[in-house]
Each structure stands twice: as structure tokens, then as C-alpha cells.
């Protein structure tokens, strides 16, 4: 398997072998550069929150990891496997769909707009991928789905369709669906941004539980600073496609060094 050479951003690693590493990643949409020479590592079990103004590239990082977007240049490695390149006849070439599919099985994602499948009930939403991708038996998958639904407080909704659930309930089903694939890394993309304020707490409590009871690696994009402070080991402040400042939440939220970080946090906290 393709392992990238020691990366330039290795000094940022918290562990010996990073689970995720970005090496000089550039992402452009047309003439717009969203990420510039981005280097960072995430250790296994680490919870990293990405903050910053909209358009700063946070969501793009998650989308690159989920292979919903392709890098313009640079490379990304997940658990020792390159997500961007593959070995073909001894040469490193751009990863094809099949290669991407293998590597991204280790990654789960929860979206801002839930994206549950409206043509399936809650149970099928959760069991479809474990059965079709992991090759679990239907019984086994349903057993696990029930446990996960109990965990997110929706054990009685197995036969409902997504349209019969509130936004907060749908998002909790989406979390269960992502967990059912037993990912090593969970990407949370503004998971409460589309919810009514009174439903946000339920979803965040579920995520806090998961953070407290598992050692799953998480990359979180959120504007919920209280949640970010509670669950993350590290906060990275982004601006214009680069990491402006990073550190433990106590430092970033308590005494940010950068002026832009200060003004950003002030604006976000006033909004809430």
C-alpha cells in the first residue's frame, strides 16, 4: 500500500503514527483557492474541532476526507493508506474510485442536512450499508441497529420513515447510520446547523455520549463552541484555507493569540 514519505507537517502530530495526515494539500474550485498547502496530522482517538469563518475551508477538509471532492495537489493519508494516490505498476497515480472506496470505509460522516434515504424506513437506512458493504447478515445488522437506536434514544422508531421524524430525530438516526459502519474516523459537518434551537441539545448530547464512551477519532466542524470545548482535544482555527492558530480548547477559547481568532470567537459567541 502507498505510504507517503515523512510529511512536512509531522511536527503537528500528537501521536507516533497519525491516523490522518494532510500533506501540502491544495484545493481549488476554478480560480478560487480554498485550501493552500495545508499540512496537519490527527492522531488515533483524537477529537479535533475545526472553526473559522465560512469559506475558510473547514467543510472542504471533511469533504476531501470523504472523497466527495478531489485534491488539486498534495496528498492525504488515512490509517496508512493514501486516499489520493495508489500504486499502479510501481508508479504513484491518482486514486481511482475503487481504491477510494476501500480507504473511505474507515470513515463515517454525518451531514448538515442529514441525507437519510426517504424511500427506506429507519431500520433499513441503518442496516443497508452494513449488509451490502460489510457483508453482515440482516439479523446481525438489525441487532446492532437496535442497539444504536436505543443509544440515540430512538429505539421505538425503527419502522418510521424519515419524513415522519423531526430534524433532530433524523440527525440522530443519521449518527446511528454512520456508527453502524464501525468507522475509525467520524466526520461531523455542522450537524446541528439545520436544526431548530430546541432540538440541538438532543443531538449534541448523543455526540457527547459517543465521545465519552468510545475512542473514535472525530473531526468536527461546528459553531457550537460549548460543545467543541467539551469534546475536543484540539481546536484548529482556519482562515482563508490555512491554519491560523491551533491548540487545546482551553487555550483557543480562553486566550487566543491571534487577533482574527479573537474577533471570530467574539462574533460567534454573540450570535448564540
Amino acid at each position, binding site marked *: 500500500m502507498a505510504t507517503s514519505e515523512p510529511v512536512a507537517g509531522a511536527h503537528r502530530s500528537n501521536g507516533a503514527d497519525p491516523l490522518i495526515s494532510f500533506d501540502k494539500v491544495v484545493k481549488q474550485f476554478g480560480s478560487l483557492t480554498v485550501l493552500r498547502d495545508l499540512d496537519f496530522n490527527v492522531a488515533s482517538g483524537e477529537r479535533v474541532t475545526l472553526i473559522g469563518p465560512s469559506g475558510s475551508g473547514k467543510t472542504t477538509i471533511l469533504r476531501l476526507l*470523504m472523497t466527495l471532492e478531489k485534491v488539486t495537489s498534495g496528498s492525504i493519508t488515512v490509517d496508512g493508506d493514501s486516499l489520493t494516490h495508489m500504486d499502479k505498476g510501481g508508479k504513484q497515480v491518482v486514486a481511482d474510485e475503487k481504491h477510494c472506496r476501500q480507504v*473511505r470505509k474507515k470513515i463515517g460522516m454525518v451531514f448538515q442536512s442529514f441525507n437519510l434515504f426517504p*424511500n427506506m424506513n429507519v431500520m433499513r437506512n441503518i442496516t*443497508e*450499508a452494513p449488509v451490502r*458493504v460489510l457483508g453482515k447478515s440482516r439479523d446481525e445488522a438489525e441487532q446492532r441497529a437496535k442497539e444504536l437506536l436505543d443509544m440515540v434514544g430512538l429505539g421505538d422508531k425503527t419502522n418510521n420513515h424519515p419524513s415522519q421524524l423531526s430534524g433532530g430525530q433524523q440527525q440522530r438516526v443519521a449518527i446511528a447510520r454512520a456508527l453502524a459502519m464501525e468507522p475509525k474516523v467520524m466526520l461531523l459537518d455542522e450537524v446541528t446547523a439545520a436544526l431548530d434551537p430546541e432540538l440541538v441539545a438532543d443531538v449534541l448530547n448523543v455526540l457527547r455520549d459517543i465521545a465519552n464512551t468510545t475512542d473514535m477519532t472525530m473531526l468536527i466542524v461546528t459553531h457550537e463552541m460549548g460543545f467543541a470545548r467539551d469534546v475536543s482535544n484540539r481546536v484548529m482555527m482556519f482562515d482563508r484555507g490555512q491554519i491560523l492558530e491551533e491548540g487545546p480548547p482551553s487555550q483557543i477559547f480562553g486566550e487566543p493569540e491571534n487577533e482574527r481568532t479573537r474577533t471570530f470567537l467574539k462574533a460567534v459567541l454573540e450570535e448564540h
Partner: protein
Amino acid sequence: MIVVTEACTPEDTGKWEWCRVDELLNPPPDAAWNSLYNGLWITIQATVIGAIIAIVLGLIFAIMRRSSVRPVSWTATAIVEFIRSTPLLVQLFFLFFVIVPTLFTGMDVETQAKVAGFTGLGLHYATYMSEVYRAGIDGVPKGQWEATTALSLPRVRVWTSVILPQAIPRVLPALGNYVIAMFKEVPLLFTIGVTEMLFDAQSYGSSTFHYTEAITVVGVFFLVISIITAIPIRLLERRYGHL
């Protein structure tokens, strides 16, 4: 069944004669024409077989056009655009006089006409239906595709479990309308010798010189069947909305 009220006399009254309708539907043993019911049966065969070809092939074209493999999407686009931009009648002639005789040399002409006619209709309408499917597929939100990627669902499953179950219900009314449109085009097959309804009416007319009744009955048959088949389509529209 139309009830006979009077027998036809040899002389022409110059008025509408119900007995002509009866003759057309129930020809005497030595008649030079087939019963119009015969043509109706062929018309229904053409519609059903043509619709099956169009519905299946249309979906295949639509999925091919979305392929990330360039030659596949280009081929489908080329076929669809070519067929849509040439007249059905020309295609029928080409199939009947060129392609089918080459492929099926041992076949009798009547069967060749049916093969050419049914596949010609199906192929032509497949290209229109592929556009309908395409609109339905494009109507599935991008987030659904992204969710299938996030779950690593295999390509075939993405289509069969997620995309098509959402896309197809919405396009059913439009597909149904095309089936009715195709049904009304079946008389074009008359030109290549398929013995559908217009063929029977024409042979009745040429042997009796009573075209009025014959052509009128053909029109009424089309009208009645079109209106009846439109009912389930209107119901589908009410359920899934227009496209």
C-alpha cells in the same frame, strides 16, 4: 360489441350506414379484409412491446449518459440525439428495408414488418423516455448521492436502493404519457405493412369504397383507449406530482 340493426344493401345511400361498422368488425367468410379487432390486437401488441423496449432501454440510456466513463456516456448521448433528431417514419423504413432483412433473412415479410415496427417504436420512444428518466434522476438531491458515498455503497446498490426508488415514482406519469403518445403512433406501422387497425380500415375501404365508417371507427377506438388509459396516469400525477 356493436349491435347490428340492419343488413347492408349493395347500393350506396350516401349516408352513414351502421351495417358498414358491423361488416368491418365481423367480416363475412369470403371478405377481402380482416376484422378490425385483428388490427386492434396488433396495435395493442405494438404498444405493449414497444413500451417495454422504451421503458427498459430508456433507463439504460439515462444511466449510461451519467457514466463517468467517457466513451459510455458519449455513445449513449450520440444514440439518443441521433434518434431524436430523425423522423420515426424514416427510422421505420430503414429498419424494415435495410436492417431487419439483413439480420433475419429467413423470416417472412409480415413478421419482419412487426419486428421492425415494434422495435422502431420502442427505440424511438426510448430516447424520449431517457430524457424523462434523466430529469427524474437529476431531481434526486445531491445529498443522497453524497450519503451513498459516505456509506461506501457499491455502484449498483446506489442505483437500485437509493436513486431509482426516488427517481422513478416521480417520472411514472411522464412515462405513461409517452406510452399513450406511442400508442397513437402505431398507425405509422401501416406504411411498412404491419396489419394494425388502419391497415384493416384501408383494406375494407378499398374493397367496399366505404372509407367514412372504417376510418371513423379506427379514430373512435383510439379515442376510447387513450381516454381510458389516461385515467391511471392522472391518478399517478395526483399522487406523485407533475414533472
